[in-house]
């Protein structure tokens, strides 16, 4: 375990140092409302280093944090504004027809409707595998929220191959600097937002497609998607430990997987989790640290009065039941309130004050003042009796680094609190027979100290 996570060292530090290039306060993505994409084939890296042939949507244009003309898994997260007329132009460099569908969007029109490009398919207008025909999908982003898109052509095979992505529709009045909300009202306000697009892969499908193409056969020959058994599980197209590495340009050796999943927050902040069931299986997504409030499903606020902006039907839970094709917006908060000991250590250990506001939290650090200066109620075991995690700072206190034996810890630059966010079907936190890995990452609750910033 420790060895595996130690390998992470440099890349993880890079992720934290890079800021915008790594973990970002807004989800990584490309802004519209016009998107030019080409479906392409390339290879992705599983968490154990294995290479899988994959298909994905590649951005035709240059976008910060993305690789132009490189297919990516998942496809580019398309970020648009409520009311935008969204236009997606799709070309196809794959060996079979491909398309896009937009669950949760209504009134989608296509170039097949106007006979200006593409071939009508079972679900939607398809782009033939000629690399030049452009198929256009147009819709109005009428509701803010979190959505997904995926191939509407042989989706049983093509989503497995990687043709899936996320859509974020910003509410009217959204401002990244001054007004961060998911749905336009205080009930969905947040300080930081992160995407968790959950998918899985069966490597045998990818091998079979690769063999077919080498043999000059149609790619789907002999592929039985009903026999699907996954060996790899992904968050935002990466399997742990890659989920915790830098994004985009920070990890140039993973151009086909530009997104990481490295949520960070300070105590007292509101973190918006945009969670999507992007594959075929259900996943119980357990977030250590605290319960969250699921405030919206499938891009609709959980409110008893439509349009009120008050998510009064929100559900508190410690695990988000992620169902294929569904999306969830959940607000996660953490303060350490009521632990019964001072998370910054006693005043004798760490001179600090606690000045309570009307809610009982320190005005700056958001420390829960009722627990101020209370010692840790137990003595921790001797070092020889402990096994140390790579993300353990060596101290129980937030922002304090303790002594660790040589070679232990080392991945927790700011002495933050690391909590695992993962599939609680623990079979899925492996990479094809190797533990740990898969559908797993960590949230970092960072100390509010000078020099530590979260965009």
């Amino acid at each position, binding site marked *: *375990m420790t060895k595996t*996570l130690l390998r992470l060292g440099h890349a993880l530090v890079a992720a934290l140092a890079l800021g915008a290039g790594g973990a970002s306060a807004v989800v990584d993505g490309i802004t519209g409302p016009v998107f030019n994409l080409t479906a392409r084939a390339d290879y992705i890296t599983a968490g154990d280093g294995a290479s899988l042939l994959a298909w994905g949507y590649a951005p035709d244009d240059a976008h910060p944090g993305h690789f132009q003309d490189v297919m990516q898994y998942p496809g580019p997260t398309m970020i648009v504004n409520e009311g935008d007329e969204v236009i997606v132009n799709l070309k196809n460099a794959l060996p079979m027809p491909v398309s896009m569908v937009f669950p949760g969007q209504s009134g989608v029109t296509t170039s097949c409707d106007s006979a200006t490009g593409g071939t009508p398919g079972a679900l939607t207008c398809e782009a033939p595998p000629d690399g030049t025909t452009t198929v256009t999908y147009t819709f109005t982003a009428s509701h803010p929220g979190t959505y997904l898109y995926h191939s509407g052509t042989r989706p049983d095979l093509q989503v497995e191959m990687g043709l899936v992505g996320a859509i974020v529709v910003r509410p009217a009045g959204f401002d990244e600097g001054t007004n961060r909300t998911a749905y336009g009202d205080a009930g969905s306000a947040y300080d930081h937002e992160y995407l968790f697009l959950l998918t899985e892969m069966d490597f045998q499908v990818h091998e079979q497609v690769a063999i077919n193409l080498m043999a000059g056969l149609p790619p789907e020959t002999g592929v039985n998607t009903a026999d699907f058994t996954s*060996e790899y599980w992904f968050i935002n197209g990466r399997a742990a430990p890659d989920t915790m590495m830098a994004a985009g340009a920070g990890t140039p050796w993973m151009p086909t997987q530009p997104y990481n999943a490295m949520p960070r927050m300070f105590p007292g902040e509101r973190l918006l989790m945009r969670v999507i069931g992007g594959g075929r299986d259900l*996943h*119980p997504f357990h977030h*250590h*640290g*605290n*319960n969250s*409030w699921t405030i919206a499903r499938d891009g609709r606020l*959980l409110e*008893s009065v439509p349009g009120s902006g008050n*998510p*009064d*039907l*929100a*559900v*508190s*839970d*410690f*695990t988000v*039941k992620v169902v294929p094709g569904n999306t969830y917006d959940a607000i996660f908060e*953490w*303060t350490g309130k*009521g*632990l*019964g*000991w001072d998370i910054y250590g006693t005043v004798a250990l760490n001179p600090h004050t606690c000045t309570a506001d009307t809610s009982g939290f320190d005005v700056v650090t958001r420390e829960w003042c009722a627990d101020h200066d209370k010692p*840790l*109620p*137990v*003595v*921790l*075991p*001797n070092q*020889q*009796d*402990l*096994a140390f*995690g*790579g*993300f*353990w700072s060596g101290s*129980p206190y*937030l922002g304090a680094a303790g002594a660790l034996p040589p070679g232990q810890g080392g991945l927790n630059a700011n002495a933050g609190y*690391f*909590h*695992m966010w993962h*599939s*609680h*079907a*623990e*079979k899925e*936190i*492996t990479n094809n*027979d*190797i*533990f*740990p890995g898969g559908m797993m990452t*960590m949230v970092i609750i960072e100390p509010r100290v000078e020099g530590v910033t979260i965009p």
Partner: protein
Amino acid sequence: MKTTCTLSRLGFLVALAWGLAPAAHGAVFVQCPGDSNQDAVIDNPALHPNAKCMHLSGGDGFVTMADGYLQYIFGFSDLTGVLPEQAMSEGMLAANFPAPTIALKQGQQFYLSLTNAGMAIRPDLFDPHTVHFHGFPQAAPVFDGMPEGSIGINMGATITYYYNLIEPGTFMYHCHMEATEHMQMGMLGSLYVDPIQNRTGIGGSLAAPDLSTVAAKEGGAGPYGYVYNDGDGSTAFDVEIPIQLGSFDPAFHDASYTVQPLPFAEMKDKYPMMNGRGYPDTVNSASLPPPIDPETGESANGGKVSQPVSSRVTATAGQKILLRLSNLSVTNFYTVTALGLPMKVVGTGAHILRGPDGTDTYYDTSSVTLGGGEAADVIVDTGGAAPGTYFLYTTNLNYLSNNTEDYGGMMTEIVIN
């Protein structure tokens, strides 16, 4: 004045006993306030009315599946009341499935000591263990038991976790060390926290309880208990039972037993269970007899009872049954139904089903679906139900089996008198 003086002197002695004297390397070291002999039993509970102590061992052992198959497991056992010098021998080969149920009360300070008793059958393993109090609110890594971000305890030593219990509800606990392996191997158990309303009654306080509604569980005149601090009695119940769903892959367990590579990718659970047993063992209200090794005909674990938890529910018509459901399978979602009886879900994720402003979101249903790491509080109202035997079972019908034996698995009986 005299009392205060005694108390502070006791406090000082306690500090000497368990605050200032770190254990020697590799020793059992139980930390529990007012416990002079480290058996995790408070000498004089009146002096520590809100403290609660427990001592678990982590190690290996055996259980018997409902088709008679002997299964090697990792697990916890309860060492509360055992002196430290006996803890290692008592904890050896003592793994239970499920792990001992942990029943707590809001307002308590819970000191949970975990001693790693080692793997008697696998002396080649030096695995640390942890306790992850799954769902603990506002958790700090030091007591979260998630070893990648904190610490695990090595063989022969003890860690004491501290939890200030401010939220009621149905949680669960498990070892998080090499989680896929240790959880498939069985280090899983039920954990719940009673609400303070049990002791205050509705609208009362600890200082001035509303005696007519204080829970019978706490000696009051009210209903047996409440699930949450509902303020209106809507989560009241008369009978309660934690039911933890889970499942084992015998190929994985056998690979561990025989020191073979562990089949993570091939993992496929074949023994679906409630509280560590498949039907019909679920309805045996007694402990299962100690597991027998079929090759020798002798006890596989030194004669220790390792499956003490029944899932048989009995109630009188008209009573409300609280099912504290949780799922700790590492592979599957499971749906359960109580055929012929209405189910009302009043909580999920150790939280009353009410929105942020208190809006009621309870719902009536005839099935509940839980993935691993999910919990639900379900009240079954037997008013209007004819006396008889009803079944609580998974509607994932292929899991009504004990490996190759049909008709068994994840099912139990609710008997209404």
